[in-house]
């Protein structure tokens, strides 16, 4: 019962902004999209931020209240070693390291030094050019051969690549077909999930309605006891005839019940009803006395949130002179000489 009350209290204050906050704090959300949505709310909504801080603090208490366990000393050493390795190495650092490893000089090229040494060595350079030219010619011939070989290899590789492209294309087509199938399956699963969610919501609504009806019945019982007590103390005679399961009662609302108490001396009466739905817009419930000449409208009345009403009125004649009592829905301030609206409750008085 406590649990039900708690749930009811929560449901009454239900605000979709807070709906997934506890799940977020407990790490129990199902989808990344839900987490992102909650984080956006925390970032932008001060009320959600405040609620988040409270719930997060509770989760934090759970974390610190677990029994301590001693990690091995090597764990701290390992963490500090990893920290000392610094940030992940950047590509340019890798290149720099490679250059250093290969002892590749990034200083001024040799030929710049040569030119900077002046024309004094130009004759020696001329001789050197002849020698180097001969050497380069030989090397050029060798490079030409290597290029031809590479071209031949490239042609072979091109064929291989073309075959791979064909295979890849086939694989892609298969994958696209499979993705389409999976999308279709997911759509079916989403529809099923939607239907299940709808059922869950419906069940929750039913539980909530049942709780309200339960409260209404308790209230009705309580009120009836009170009226019975008043009837005895104040010389009222209780005409308890509106129980919906009695044969003389006709009703369109099975949950409805009611009673009339009449003072023994005099013509004062009290009418009480329970379990009525709210009337249609523009209509109000009307109490009629029937069977003693023309129908007599006694009063138009509203019902409380739980469908109850209590009305005190003067009987135009002793109640036994009337054959029945009736409650109908009539237009507000539009009562005619006869009941024309929906009859919700009718009962014989004898």
């Amino acid at each position: 019962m406590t649990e039900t009350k708690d749930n009811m209290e929560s449901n009454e204050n239900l605000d979709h902004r807070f709906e997934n906050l506890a799940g977020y704090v407990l790490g129990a959300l199902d989808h990344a999209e839900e987490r992102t949505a909650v984080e956006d709310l925390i970032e932008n909504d001060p009320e959600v931020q405040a609620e988040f801080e409270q719930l997060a603090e509770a989760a934090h208490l759970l974390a610190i209240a677990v029994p301590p366990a001693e990690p091995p000393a090597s764990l701290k050493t390992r963490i500090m070693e990893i920290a000392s390795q610094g940030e992940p190495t950047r590509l340019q650092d890798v290149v720099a390291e490679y250059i250093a490893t290969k002892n590749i000089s990034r200083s001024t090229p040799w030929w710049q030094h040569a030119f900077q040494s002046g024309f004094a060595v130009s004759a020696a350079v001329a001789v050197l050019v002849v020698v180097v030219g001969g050497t380069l010619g030989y090397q050029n011939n060798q490079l030409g051969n290597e290029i031809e070989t590479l071209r031949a290899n490239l042609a072979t590789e091109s064929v291989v690549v073309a075959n791979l492209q064909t295979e890849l294309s086939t694989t892609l087509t298969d994958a696209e077909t499979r993705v389409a199938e999976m999308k279709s399956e997911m759509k079916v699963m989403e529809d099923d999930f939607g239907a299940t969610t709808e059922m869950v919501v419906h069940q929750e609504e039913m539980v909530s309605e049942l709780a309200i009806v339960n409260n209404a019945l308790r209230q009705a019982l309580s009120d009836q006891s009170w009226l019975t007590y008043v009837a005895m103390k104040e010389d009222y005679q209780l005409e308890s005839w509106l129980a919906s399961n009695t044969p003389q009662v006709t009703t369109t609302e099975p949950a409805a019940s009611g009673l009339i108490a009449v003072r023994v001396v005099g013509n004062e009466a009290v009418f009480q009803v329970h379990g009525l739905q709210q009337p249609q817009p523009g209509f109000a419930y009307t109490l009629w006395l029937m069977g003693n000449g023309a129908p007599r409208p006694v009063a138009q009345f509203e019902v409380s949130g739980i469908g109850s009403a209590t009305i005190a009125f003067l009987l135009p004649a002793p109640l036994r002179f009337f054959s029945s009592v009736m409650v109908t829905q009539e237009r507000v301030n539009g009562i005619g000489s006869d009941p024309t609206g929906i009859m919700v409750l009718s009962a014989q008085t004898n």
Partner: protein
Amino acid sequence: MVGRVLIGQMNQLNYEELEDLELLAKISEKDRQALAELYDRYGRRVFALAVRMLNDPVGSEEVTQDVFMSVWRRGASYTSKKGKFTTWLFSIAHNRTIDELRKRKRDRSRENTDIDDHLNIQSSDISPADAAVAQSEYLQIRAAMEKLPVEQKHVVDLSYFKGLTQTEIAMKTGQPLGTVKTRMRLALKKLRTALSAEIGAQA
């Protein structure tokens, strides 16, 4: 705690005297000593949370290492909007452990153990002083948990310590999803009320 304390003539910083956020600021400057101090303060608790959830000391070491390396690399991303520093730190630890737990669940289905088993002190390597503190905190959390309606206690255990999602809990308990969400929220609020005065002051 006070701010900074200078020792002798060397102007050496006493890291033990620094507040958590001061340590975090130093960590964002890649101060390893600050990381070591932070580990000394919270390493055991992070490890203990992982052990509590995974029931596996080796896996818990990996989780603890990941948590502190995450702080080392992303400490500068902390803002007060993420809650108190310790709340933020333990949320990193919890999320990381849940990731590990779910990864393992995907690999193989694990036998669930009762909540009371988890609440028992499991390590035999705890010092007598720590054991006394642990026993005190254990009794407090146990008392607070016992005050919860059994359904609320169950959803907290399934979500926080066993890593089940809301939908998984709804399916496991046969309760509507809305009811599960409501119970989670109510349980946290009640726990906070019951425990914050007791343990919060010590944290």
